[in-house]
């Protein structure tokens, strides 16, 4: 059973779920990290202006170091 409790003295709200006891602030940060993780996987990385856009699948390029400028 999930319950939301407030700590005395205004120390924040906590979520209680069995042995799990976590502050709402920490829970939100963990959720934000998960969102950022998937965003990093899904959002395309900008290509340098000099490089023409191609439809080549990732990792299918010639096996040399001539990749993208960094």
């Amino acid at each position: 059973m999930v319950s939301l409790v407030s700590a005395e003295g205004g120390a924040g709200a906590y979520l209680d779920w069995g042995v799990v006891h976590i502050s709402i602030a920490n829970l939100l940060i963990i959720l934000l990290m998960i969102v950022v993780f998937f965003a990093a996987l899904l959002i395309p990385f900008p290509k340098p202006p000099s490089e023409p856009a191609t439809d080549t699948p990732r990792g299918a390029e010639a096996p040399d170091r001539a990749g993208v400028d960094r």
Partner: protein
Amino acid sequence: MSSTTWTERVRARIEHTVPPGEALPDHQPAYVSSWIYVFGVLTLAAFVVIVVTGCVLSLGGVDWWHTSTTGHFVNSLHLWSVELFFFFMVIHLWGKFWMAAWRGGRALTWVTGVVAFLASIATAFTGYLIQTNFDSQWISTQAKDGLNSVGIGAYFNVLNAAQMVLFHVVLLPIAVGLIAVVHVILVRRNGVVPPIDAQEPAA
């Protein structure tokens, strides 16, 4: 011709540690063109801010960061750069874990990352202990019981503020910094790990 002096041997060792051109490369394999590859360097950037703000805090001292508005500001910069450091580091960890980043002879790179993560936790923990407020008193007394219960409380005393200050500003940051340097050297030596379905460039 073999090296005869220690300076020649050290120079040769340094030159052979990382392949020529790979220490600070201006090109990367195409698969590195993904946001998931930026979190390692973001972690390093946050670490630099932590070290710089930590040095400023150590110049000002406890009085300064508790009572001065500038001290509060630098203290907050130190705290939030640590928050970002762990935020970026954990996403870096997730990315490398799901990429099985220990492949291709990169086991030591993975292990040094794990050790850096653990040393960072210890460093952050000692930072909580030297806030010199009620929060640090509460955390240190709780930690003392926890550390004693697992049998390592005899080696250091988390209630000893002076010992924890030196752990936090000297011992542990040096450890994290050195491990991070080895980690980065290994990354540059072996190259960044490719996605599982990608072909790795020839060395």
